[in-house]
């Protein structure tokens, strides 16, 4: 799995960082999403996919 984001779209909801803190963080200055691990381990895949679906602005893209 490969995770990418488009920070321009990010609305700073923080949902991803709250639900999968192992993979997503938030830049404290710009308040936009940060990817901490671009290739998350298999154990996190379901949660990463759920976070991508729940993102209010479709900022997160997941490729398998």
């Amino acid at each position, binding site marked *: 799995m490969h995770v990418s984001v488009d920070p321009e*779209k990010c*609305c*700073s*909801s*923080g*949902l991803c*960082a*709250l639900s999968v*803190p192992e993979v997503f963080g*938030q830049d*404290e200055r*710009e*308040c*936009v999403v940060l990817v901490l691990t671009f290739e998350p381990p298999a154990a996190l895949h379901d949660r990463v996919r759920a976070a991508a*679906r*729940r993102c*209010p*602005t*479709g900022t997160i893209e997941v490729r398998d």
Partner: protein
Amino acid sequence: MKSSPLHFPFEWPAAAGPPEALVTLREEPVVRVTLPSGDEAFLVTRYEEIRRVLSDPRVSRNRDRPGAPRMTERKTKVFQNPRIDRDPPEHTRMRRLMAKAFTATRVEGMRPHVRRVTEELLTDLLRRTPPVDLLEAFAVPLTLRVICGLLGVPPRDQGRFRGSLDEAWRYMGELIEAKREDPGDDLISALIEVHDEDDGRLSAHELHVWCVILLLAGFETTATQLGSGVVLLLTHPDQFELLRGDPALIPDAVEELLRCQIAGHSLSMLRLVTDDIEIGGVTIPKGSGLIPVLESANFDETVFPDPLRLDITRVNKQHLVFSAGPHFCMGAALARLELQVALEALMRRVPTLRLAVPPGDLRHHDSPLDLGFRELPVMW
């Protein structure tokens, strides 16, 4: 489409369930309605199309154009103020200034404070003789103290802006001046600092408006949702018992109570269509008012099977009560935290909680922009 427009918002006849109109609304993708202002608008009724509309740049939050539809006839400095209802990129600039207060880390860091306030309020509640209005005794003071702490509104002032919007406006003007002299470690002081840098990122007017909005939206909406959630649980005793027996269900239960909420409607979601768009085969002409009906999306049977059933164990939690797209509710994470902490503590400390009046006697507010119940008498 039906030819004679319905009136929106729909009336909520029963505390325990949604209006009849909302049950059948999704038979048509687009429904024409008349708003309290007398202006017309189109409702978008289905989940997928609502999500799409909320991210469509041709559907604008900024209604500062001649002939744009209005929600009500009432105009105030704060609501329906076109100078602050921006679209990206101005909106993005504004939003990021304030999002700092609501980052995941900051919100999670508030959990101990929210817990402490919750326990204190419940201790006071249990000393009183029922029936007690749960909104005034618990939901409102909890959410008020949390947002006031975040903004830097001193506890002694917390009764000073509850009367009217004008009072809140005046109060906030004084507080901004006081904070300019004596800043603290709070959101208002941080925003004043941004404004005072005078690089055009935040005008004095925007500063004033946004502080009032954060204050009012920060407690009324969450208190309203807490009241709605409690009413839903008390009118669905099987779900109440299920949750009381398994507090691990609290986060899922909060999402389901938000999805099924019986407190609100989407009048304030009114948008302006800035170019012809097509929704479900219907062309919506440029200049029309458009309302993505979030409560309808949340009852969409293609996304939530058996949507009218309250089921706190539901797996699919992609409800739209906090909207979606660039205007997604900035306080969503904080609201979730407050609702989770409050419900868990309420069920633990007041396990025999019940309504003190028949559900049919609970009354919603009359004014179209005031959501939720007027009062919520409970006993235990």
